[in-house]
């Protein structure tokens, strides 16, 4: 199986007039073809920043450092132009907010056609014009994401579609581009359950047919476990636990992971209060475990040194409880 993404100790720091803000503090992971990695974390965990870093969409005031940052056998650290080459059928990203994904003044057709043009350019080296793209082909893609009345929808404007429909259009774009790496940032949060299932099915299809690697970002560990082959739990800009989904769900090792799983509402209605992880995310320095303020098992060494991400049995865990 080819490796599509290889990162070692990736850091992303935002420079602001009020000081520097570290968003990602040292993330290492590898992604293979046909693999879906679920990245789970709450807001502020750095999961979206991680995705933007891989997509090359970080704002100008972001500094990226890493020991290794290889995307599809290209060194992302060598020059910013690497990302220009990769975008489209190399790396594609679906954003969280559907309404900010499309230009309000252009039709759906034109924007889908742009993706089509990119695909043709990158796969066959041929440049076609936006106007030359065959509408019928675009309609086929809309049908695959179950958009009703695709011929009519094709010529509509974004504000005339619902959030769910726009998100499906973005998935259709992904289907057109057939990217090797797909970054999906909470792609189903705004959707109803039935549409959610459909979107997930289409994503699975990409993986099966094109061998796409997907990084599926969500705050919902249940969703991540439903779709992901592997799970990566992030907190405070660092990976807390990484392993095969089955293993992690059945036997969560990190206290944070345990808390996340425990707070999934269970089927029974009679068990009293919902479980929760007490407290909220508070930024910490790098000489202590970021989860220490909220950890039910916190000890002295948790406040004095940051645990390393260590291999423990069948996964990686960052916690003093394990060595």
């Amino acid at each position: 199986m080819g490796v599509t993404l290889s990162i070692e100790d990736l850091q992303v720091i935002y420079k602001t007039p009020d000081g520097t803000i570290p968003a990602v503090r040292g993330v290492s992971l590898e992604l293979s073809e046909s693999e879906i990695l679920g990245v789970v974390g709450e807001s502020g965990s750095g999961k979206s920043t991680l995705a933007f870093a891989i997509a090359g969409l970080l704002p100008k005031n972001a500094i990226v450092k890493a020991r290794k940052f290889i995307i599809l056998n290209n060194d992302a650290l060598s020059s910013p132009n690497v990302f220009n080459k990769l975008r489209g059928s190399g790396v594609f990203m679906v954003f969280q907010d559907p309404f900010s994904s499309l230009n309000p003044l252009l039709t759906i057709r034109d924007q889908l056609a742009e993706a089509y043009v990119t695909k043709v350019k990158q796969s066959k080296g041929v440049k076609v014009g936006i106007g030359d793209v065959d509408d019928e082909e675009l309609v086929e893609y809309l049908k695959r994401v179950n958009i009703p009345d695709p011929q009519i929808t094709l010529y509509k404007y974004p504000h005339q579609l619902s959030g769910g429909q726009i998100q499906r259009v973005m998935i259709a774009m992904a289907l057109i581009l057939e990217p090797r790496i797909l970054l999906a940032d909470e792609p189903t949060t705004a959707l109803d359950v039935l549409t959610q299932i459909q979107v997930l099915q289409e994503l699975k299809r990409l993986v099966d047919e094109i061998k796409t690697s997907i990084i599926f970002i969500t705050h919902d560990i249940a969703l991540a476990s439903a779709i992901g082959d592997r799970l990566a739990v992030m907190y405070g800009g660092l990976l807390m636990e990484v392993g095969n989904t089955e293993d992690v769900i059945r036997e969560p090792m990190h206290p944070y992971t345990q808390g996340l799983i425990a707070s999934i509402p269970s089927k029974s209605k009679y068990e009293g209060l919902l479980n929760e992880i007490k407290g909220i995310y508070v930024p910490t320095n790098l000489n202590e475990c970021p989860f220490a303020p909220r950890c039910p098992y916190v000890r002295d060494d948790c406040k004095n040194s940051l645990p390393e991400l260590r291999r423990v049995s069948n996964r990686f865990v960052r916690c003093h409880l394990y060595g």
Partner: protein
Amino acid sequence: MSIWTYVINRAVRAFLLILGIIVLTFILSHVLAPNPAYVWAGPHAAPSVIQAIIREYHLDQPIYVQLYYYLVSALTFNFGFSPYFKQPVSELIAIYLPRTLQLIFVAMVLTGLIGVFTGAFAAEHKDKWGDYTVKALYLISWCMPPFLAALLLQLFIAYYWGVLPPNLMADPTLAAPRYITGFPTIDALIEGNWPYFWSSLKHLILPAFSLALISFGVITRITRSSMLTALQADYVRAAVMRGVEKGRIVYVHALKNSMIPVITLLALVFSWMISGSVIIETIFSYNGLGWLLTTALYNYDYPTVIGCSVVIGIAVVLANFIADVLYAVIDPRIKLG
């Protein structure tokens, strides 16, 4: 709210503003003016003339009666008789207004082009030399007195370089076209009067350019800042993500979204240009509405001053209305509801 609701809403608003302008000029010229009869009759008017004026403009009637007559005449474009030009004011306006309109039209096209391209250029080269140069240019444009811009252009391009004529609307030795539409250039075109047509075009350039020079700054500024915003927008990021080329991103995605505030601004620019034309026309001896207003003012020709002002006010309101409609046409969110 469909586009029709929006348009009707704007039209009603425009009409109310026009009424307001007429009433405002009425208050100034009939209520607040010390001794309206003298002002309307013009200086050196014989007592018999003043009596005639009082009867003509109903100045001895109660205010609401005066207002009624004033409104009716204004809405039928009857602005009285000019003591200086010895003609009905509406005739004067009919002659001189189109000349100014054609000047302003050319000037606005120039302003739009210069403003949008310098603004896009500045956005593209943000914080580098290109950006700073543009900023300096627009600062000078904003602060430049109209007469200085006109004089400098006249001095360097017409007198020193000699490429363009320094003043007048056209070569005075040429035969002028008949009055068909009132726009001299268009009338010449209709008549097939080519010498006059080309001459009038050449004579339009410097005055129009002067007007554009003092107005483009604000378009540059708004284009630059809305381009910068548009380039940061999420949908631009999304477009980048699907591999759209930089050229298309700047000139299709970003620019289209930046046009919306520019359109609104063009209505404001129209208003400035009318004010500017008062001065520019004087310097270039371009006999349009601005020149008419200035001459009337100088010679205490009050009916003409009021008539011109009302027409100018209406023109500005209409320009704003057209901008509102254009805005709706460009932004599909309003067009399709």
